[in-house]
């Protein structure tokens, strides 16, 4: 009898939106009655016109914003019930790549990439090793001691990506991570995200780059004025 109640782990979604709406003060709804779920180790794109609500969706998952209505659940926990300590713990299991990179411009590239590991209390040698590996993965090997201000926008974005993956988070959120990269590099970064998916990370990428979406062939959530207007399974993405 008990066995009947225990669900298979893979069936429990890592991310679940239930009738989620978000309204910023003085604006129309940025998201409206949004419902969807992402399974563990699933990778999906969120796409839509500028202002469709892609960034808002990711911010709700990272608890940078709170929904006006509905419930966001991550790894089985309702984010609405999270307070201070819970929020910090929650963010430690998520790697976030931001549209504006959010780097510390007066710290070295390495110091920036190491930050999530510092917060996690990792020893310095191990931090350095992991940061080097992450930078290698985004094609910035050897740039550890540079200051971010001395890097191009695309390189800064890749430092942000390295910081997001360095702690091997369970969930990876990326907001237009390839916006400043040339097409060749963009494909490579997406390949990197797919690698993370392959080892069990749940990946959600906001982008309006349809060419990229068609090449990578993952599930696609299409937003229009805050509404989910299409949810295309990976198998049905036209090449």
């Amino acid at each position, binding site marked *: 009898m008990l066995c009947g109640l225990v669900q298979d782990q893979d069936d429990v979604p890592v991310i679940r939106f239930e009738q989620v709406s978000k309204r910023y003060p003085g604006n129309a709804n940025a998201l409206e009655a949004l419902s969807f779920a992402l399974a563990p180790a699933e990778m999906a794109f969120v796409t839509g016109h500028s202002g469709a609500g892609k960034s808002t969706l990711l911010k709700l998952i*990272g608890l*940078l*914003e*709170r929904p006006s209505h509905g419930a966001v659940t991550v790894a089985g926990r309702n984010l609405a019930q999270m307070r*201070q*300590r819970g929020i*910090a*713990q*929650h*963010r*430690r*299991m*998520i790697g*976030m790549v*931001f549209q504006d990179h*959010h*780097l*510390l411009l007066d710290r070295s590239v390495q110091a920036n990439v190491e*930050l*999530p590991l*510092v*917060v*996690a*209390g*990792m*020893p*310095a040698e191990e931090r350095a090793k992991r940061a080097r590996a992450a930078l290698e993965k985004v094609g910035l090997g050897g740039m550890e001691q540079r200051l971010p201000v001395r890097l191009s926008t695309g390189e800064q974005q890749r430092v942000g990506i390295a*910081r997001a993956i360095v702690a091997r988070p369970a969930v990876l959120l990326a907001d237009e991570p390839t916006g400043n990269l040339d097409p060749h590099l963009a494909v490579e970064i997406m390949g990197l995200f797919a690698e993370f998916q392959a080892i069990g990370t749940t990946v959600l990428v906001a982008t309006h780059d349809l060419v990229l979406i068609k090449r990578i062939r993952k599930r696609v959530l299409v937003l229009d004025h805050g509404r989910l207007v299409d949810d295309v399974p990976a198998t049905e993405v036209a090449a």
Partner: protein
Amino acid sequence: MNSREQAATRRGAPARWWRAHRWALGQSLLRLRERPLGTALTVAVMGLALALPLSFYLVQINLDRLGQALGAQQALNVFLKQDQTQAQAEALARTLRADPAVAAVTLKSPAAGLSELAALQGFGPALAALPNNPLPWVLVLRPRATAAPAAVRALATRLRGNSAVALVQDQAPLRARMDALTGFGRRVMQVLGALLALAAVLVVGASVRSDIQSRVDEIHVLQLVGASAAFVRRPYLYAGFWLGLLSGAVAVIVVLLLELLLAAPAARLDASWGGRLHFAALDATPLLVLLVCAAMLGWLGARMASARHLAAAEPN
């Protein structure tokens, strides 16, 4: 995370705690070094603010000593008439010893009084020129510490009425005035000391606040990568602690310099009072207490500033 990694994580908790603190410590020192002028200014202002209560304390313990030095003269000096003999003086002393308000009575002969006078600078030749000893017998009467001032006053009045007594010198009223004065001074110093300690907290608080405000972006990024409130706050608390400790050191140095500057004039003042004043310097205990208090005040100021301004920095 597999079960072996989980076990390692649990075992690593104290190590993680220690690393987090070491990181915060390093960050706090970096912060102070990154703003040398601001740090120096804060330390100077807070140091002077703390030097004042400490100097007050120095003044207070010396006033207390002065009071004690004067208190030693609280005795009643009973000068007998010239015609009183040793036997009569001794008889009077015996009856006085029986008085419940009296702790001890010492007899001072005219000869002893004369040599005491001669010992005082400059009197020697003048006294030598005297044909005979003009000094009377004197009874030095020490009241019991428990005796009520009124009882001592009544005793003095009674002695003044005694036909054998020429003069009664009573230091008690002077002592009472002195006590009132030092008590008042002590209260003034306590109030000023508390105000200056508060000022020190505010100075550190202001410094930490401006530090936090110039680092809103950094705080934001730390929060985004999952830093807890305690983790974000810790470097500022350490910075406050260092600012407090450095200020305490400045205060100690200022007061030691003050003592050094005052040593020579104090010695001259003491000598002019026949070496009865015994000015004291501060020993190590109040200096250490000040250092500890200063560090705690710095921490407190940082704690207050960070509680308010870090909450404001959290992305909602």
